[in-house]
């Protein structure tokens, strides 16, 4: 499996979370939870860590609706909105994807380490990895993401 990490493993890329982030806004929560679980399990099968990524993705999926609610724009979400920079703007997207990545990364590395020794390093790993993942996600959004809708 191609593995991307910098700074001696302190900053790792977990691009697969893109799948959860880009799920349509109106996806039923049960589906988001299950999708997260399955996605996590697939990643676990590559890393030989049954349950680890599954747990992190499920947590991420669980947090998503509350987060979406908290980030509701002034005029509420439109029916055709997609969680993309084109529809929701960069600021919204950074907060949305950033928080999801952060929750995922921090939980992932905490559970992976499963101990409070080197706690600072573990937290730093979570924080830096979520930054890297967010940066690449935003880059991909700009290069390949949904295009602005035609004016109504």
């Amino acid at each position: 499996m191609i593995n991307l990490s910098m700074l001696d493993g302190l900053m790792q890329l977990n691009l697969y979370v893109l799948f959860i982030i880009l799920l349509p806004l109106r996806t039923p929560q049960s589906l988001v939870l299950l999708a997260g679980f399955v996605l996590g399990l697939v990643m676990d099968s590559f890393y030989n860590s049954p349950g680890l990524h599954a747990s992190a993705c499920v947590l991420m999926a669980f947090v998503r609706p509350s987060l979406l609610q908290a980030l509701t724009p002034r005029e509420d979400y439109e029916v055709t909105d997609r969680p993309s920079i084109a529809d929701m703007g960069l600021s919204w997207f950074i907060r949305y994807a950033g928080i999801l990545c952060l929750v995922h990364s921090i939980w992932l590395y905490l559970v992976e380490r499963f101990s409070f020794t080197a706690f600072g390093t573990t937290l730093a790993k979570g924080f830096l990895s979520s930054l890297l993942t967010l940066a690449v996600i935003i880059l991909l959004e700009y290069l390949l993401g949904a295009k602005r809708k035609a004016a109504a």
Partner: protein
Amino acid sequence: MRDFVRFLNAYKHGLLFLLLQVISFSLLFEFGVFQRTVFLSSLNRVTASIQAQTSSWTDYFHLDEVNQQLRDENLDLLQRCELSLKDAGKEYVFAEPDAFYLKRYQFQYSHVLSSTKHLQNNYLTLDKGRAQGVMPSMGVISEMSLVGRVERATKEFALVVPIIHRGFEASAQLERSGHFGLLSWNGLDYRFAQLDQIPKEAKVQVGDRVVTRGAGSLFPEGILIGTISEAIIDEGANFYTLQVELAVDFSSIQEVMLVKDEQRVQLDSLTVDMPTDE
């Protein structure tokens, strides 16, 4: 009953979340049981074949390294042969001119299909499996230095638990003095492992070589593990806190050698049914 159903309905997402987390953590904790079900492991046909394919693309970029490593290893082996023809005395010579020894260990090259180094539990996937005679608990070395042990094997692939795995332990000794202890990894840096239980009388110095002890017959005796990079005795402690700089570079591991101990079964049968702890 209706209230219960209403409760379930109201909190269905929270309950589903908890259920999925419980399943995730059960998987996490019961990995041992999963050994028999290869389903989620990297040995699953799909993931293994994807890794084999990816590896065949990325391997091209490592050809130079592999060549150099093979050349170094050949040189090392040739030199040891030379050495073994003389009377080597008490040195930890790997291949002694002894029919008993030569018959005991069989070696086999294998290619690394995938490896990680930044996780808490890193694994290597190899392209040899049961069909080639690979069995769990076989030792794995690279360039005459310790890599790890085979955890399990399917027909065509094998999973290796390397030194850089929180669950790895090996009996190791200081080459110079023979003091032995337990080698393990604390999960912080893939270049360094930790050696415990060496008493303070051992007079350890930075640069001392650490080799396998051979007891427990997982690895032949005398395989280089690394060199001491830090030797500290805490106030009032009776043992050293030792850091070992690993001889194997886990950031560029491509070819390994599997070690089969022909006498393992015999040795294991000696300790069957004998109490070791009470």
